[in-house]
């Protein structure tokens, strides 16, 4: 076990002076964590508004959305969305949500803020690299959003940017020239930021733990962020070169992803020798681990908060949880082909990819059962973060179970590219991860901003959201079963027209749920200034972030070098003051 010496905790940069160095180009992991959080917040607001526009269009395709023509005269003449503009919005929605929300807030946002504190460090291992990774990510974000304002518009090839649609330029459709190039550059930049961040997380976790913070005593969250960083390091390292090759196909006259003999607008394309499946392999080699990059931090956050909510550590403790997360992380690199069952790759490989895809449900099931069994015999405190943590369990189980269908190539034949898939991945990757973010926000807000979020608004937010997401995403499974194809801007096929009323229901549910998110936003900013002052440890939790003032001083521990004596979740302890023992408390526990 690696114990760092006291010297390792010495702060390696002085407090900055002036607004620019304190709030903008800060080296402080807490400021960078908040910057990532607010970047994600901006992305999620745009992504959510895009989804409202799309949902409205799917339910009432002929109706105008007042004011939309001002965003794009070509894309929405008179406020009515054209089919290509629908696809542009869809691409932007998926890309923003997957990269700039799900990959950013849970890992880079909360991780940056709390990983160093939870291991008793005063900052990340490489503060300058940390600042760089945020600003690189920010440039990626601006590049992506800029596609909304160029004449081409955003690309119409979806967040998966399948070649050759994404490689052939404007001949293949609007937005596929400059819009697509900007998209690829944005994602390439994002990869660089994520790689830098991943290195920093790994080095920090391994090197900067305070005295007594053995690996076994690391909170669930630290393990989750650490494992996610390793995943990110391996996955983004493959997406980055894929992006470089795709840009070259556009601007360098290469044909990495374009085979010969393609004809567009009666024009034989000047390409030959490329492979369209190569893009899919490279993309999904990143893309499937990416699902776990999005969800593992949520698993960590939920476990962390569930322990505090239930007043007991997770059943099986760190050992089982970490074992399962490592197993999931490892297997996640062996399953990418399940996105390609019907892609035309060798059908034998579909069978091979199906097996680890099914096996990955075993560690996921163990984690889920352990969460549910942790609730057994608990003393549940139903505060808002706890509600979202429990809600996470429910949606994670629901979303995970539909994966059983899609993991089987023979069932994927029917379900592939239907709303069943849309319902599945939104539930397990989107909603579950977002519930993790909400839980984390309500839980750590007091530490980050020194004030409590309003509980009444929080509870209304939870109930509307929890019921709302089931109303939005369960019906998608049903219409998927009826064969409703995804990525259609309107439903004109004979068998799809009778399903439009279901789309109307989903749209209404999305608006109601969306309204609750506005309440969350209001609560967030209102509480920052008007919320009740937070104590040091409002949730009676045990890990190191609750041993320091809210908000923490610049060097986190105020010059103190914390020493850890206990496991991270000594909760429900009899004979202790309250019912818990802080990780850094020298108090001895009665051996039970």
């Amino acid at each position, binding site marked *: 076990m690696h114990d760092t010496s006291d010297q390792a905790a010495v702060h390696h940069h002085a407090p900055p002076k002036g607004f620019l160095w304190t709030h903008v180009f800060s080296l402080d992991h807490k400021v960078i964590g908040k910057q990532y959080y607010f970047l994600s917040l901006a992305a999620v607001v745009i992504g959510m508004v895009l989804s409202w526009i799309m949902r409205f269009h799917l339910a009432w395709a002929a109706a105008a959305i007042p004011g939309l023509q001002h965003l794009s005269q070509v894309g929405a003449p008179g406020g009515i969305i054209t089919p290509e503009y629908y696809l542009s919005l869809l691409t932007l929605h998926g890309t923003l949500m997957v990269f700039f929300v799900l990959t950013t807030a849970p890992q880079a946002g909360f991780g940056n803020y709390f990983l160093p504190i939870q291991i008793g460090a005063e900052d990340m291992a490489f503060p300058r690299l940390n600042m760089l990774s945020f600003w690189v990510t920010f440039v990626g974000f601006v590049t992506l959003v800029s596609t909304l304002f160029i004449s081409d518009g955003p690309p119409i090839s979806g967040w998966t940017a399948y070649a050759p649609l994404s490689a052939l330029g404007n001949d293949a459709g609007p937005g596929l020239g400059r819009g697509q190039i900007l998209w690829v550059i944005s994602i390439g930049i994002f990869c660089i930021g994520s790689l830098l961040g991943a290195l920093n997380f790994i080095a920090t976790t391994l090197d900067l733990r305070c005295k007594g913070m053995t690996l076994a005593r690391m909170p669930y969250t630290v393990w989750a962020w650490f494992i996610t960083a390793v995943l990110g390091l391996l996955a983004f390292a493959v997406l980055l070169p894929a992006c470089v090759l795709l840009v070259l196909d556009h601007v360098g006259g290469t044909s990495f992803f374009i085979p010969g*003999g393609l004809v567009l607008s009666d024009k034989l394309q000047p390409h030959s020798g490329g492979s369209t499946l190569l893009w899919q392999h490279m993309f999904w080699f990143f893309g499937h681990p990416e699902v776990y990059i999005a969800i593992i931090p949520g698993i960590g956050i939920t476990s962390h908060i569930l322990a505090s909510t*239930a*007043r007991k550590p997770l059943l099986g403790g760190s050992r089982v949880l970490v074992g399962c997360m490592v197993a999931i992380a490892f297997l996640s690199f062996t399953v990418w082909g399940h996105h390609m069952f019907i892609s035309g790759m060798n059908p*034998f490989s579909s*069978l091979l990819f199906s097996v680890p895809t099914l096996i990955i449900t075993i560690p996921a099931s163990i984690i889920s059962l352990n969460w549910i069994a942790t609730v057994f015999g608990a003393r549940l405190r*139903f505060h808002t973060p706890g509600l979202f943590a429990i809600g996470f369990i429910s949606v994670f189980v629901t979303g995970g179970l539909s994966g059983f269908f899609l993991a089987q190539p023979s*069932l994927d034949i029917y379900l592939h590219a239907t709303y069943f898939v849309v319902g599945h991945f939104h539930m397990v990757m989107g909603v579950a991860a977002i519930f993790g973010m909400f839980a984390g926000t309500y839980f750590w807000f007091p530490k980050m901003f020194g004030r409590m979020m309003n509980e009444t608004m929080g509870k209304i937010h939870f109930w509307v959201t929890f019921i709302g997401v089931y109303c939005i995403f369960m019906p998608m499974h*049903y*219409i998927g079963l009826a064969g409703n194809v995804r990525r259609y801007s309107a439903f004109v096929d004979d068998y799809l027209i009778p399903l439009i009323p279901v789309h109307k229901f989903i749209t209404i549910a999305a608006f109601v749920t969306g309204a609750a998110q506005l309440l969350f936003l209001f609560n967030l900013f209102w509480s920052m200034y008007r919320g009740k002052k937070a104590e040091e440890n409002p949730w009676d939790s045990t890990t190191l972030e609750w041993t320091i003032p809210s908000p923490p001083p610049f060097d986190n521990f105020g010059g103190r070098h914390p020493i850890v004596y206990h496991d991270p979740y000594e909760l429900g302890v009899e004979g202790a003051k309250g019912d818990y023992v802080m990780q850094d408390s020298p108090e001895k526990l009665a051996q039970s």
Partner: protein
Amino acid sequence: MGKFFAIVLTVITLVSASIFAMHIWWMPVDISVHGPALDKQFGETLMGTGFGFLVAQLSLAYFLWKFADKGDGRKVREFPGGPKVTIITAVVLVGLEILALSFVGQKAWASVNLDPAPPNAMHIDVQAEQFAFYFRYAGPDGQFGAVHPEKISDGNGNYFGLDPENDIPARDDIVVGSLTIPVNQPILLTIHSKDVGHSFYVRELRIQQDFVPGIVIPVHFTATQTGKFEIVCTQLCGLGHYNMKAYLEVLPQDQFDQWLKAQAGQ
């Protein structure tokens, strides 16, 4: 709050499961020879996951009902049997389910994708383009003309890039915009794309297969019922993706023969 949560979760669980059970929205009737195996496997998976869904959500609801903090200083309790129980349950139940599904599933998948088309299968060539499907029958000589990409022209209706002037087998090729086939006759489609990725999806046939530019992919099936069905594109292919479709018409053999003869005579 715990009781309220339990009620909400129970209602959500039961409503969600009932809608599946009642088949309100469901797959259309299968018209293929290989389809029943896939439908059976779907049913088995639904039973397995449905059981897991109900047990997991309802246990969670029950525990939420029961284990709220009432401020009475009650001790927290471990789950009886500890993590061993949950681990063994997950490994055994999920493991068995996986084994069962993998073995059944392999057979079903193999019948669609690994077994070659029967030798008597009728061969139809299919090309997809933004935003249409074209189907080509070999004509009386039983041979397809070669495809010349440089000759492809939507403008003059040469969708496959045929060269009838120099290529004799191409002269009697029949090119149409909908797929007409005889019932109970094995069909072999060779599918390829002219421009970007597309997909061939017929719900009733339980078939979905991507068109991959640069590759010719064989698809085989036998339709067991006559009727008219929709073929739709399921791979994002550009702005007209939503509107890319064709019809599949399954005819009795004699009607099909007449139809083919009429096409050849045109």
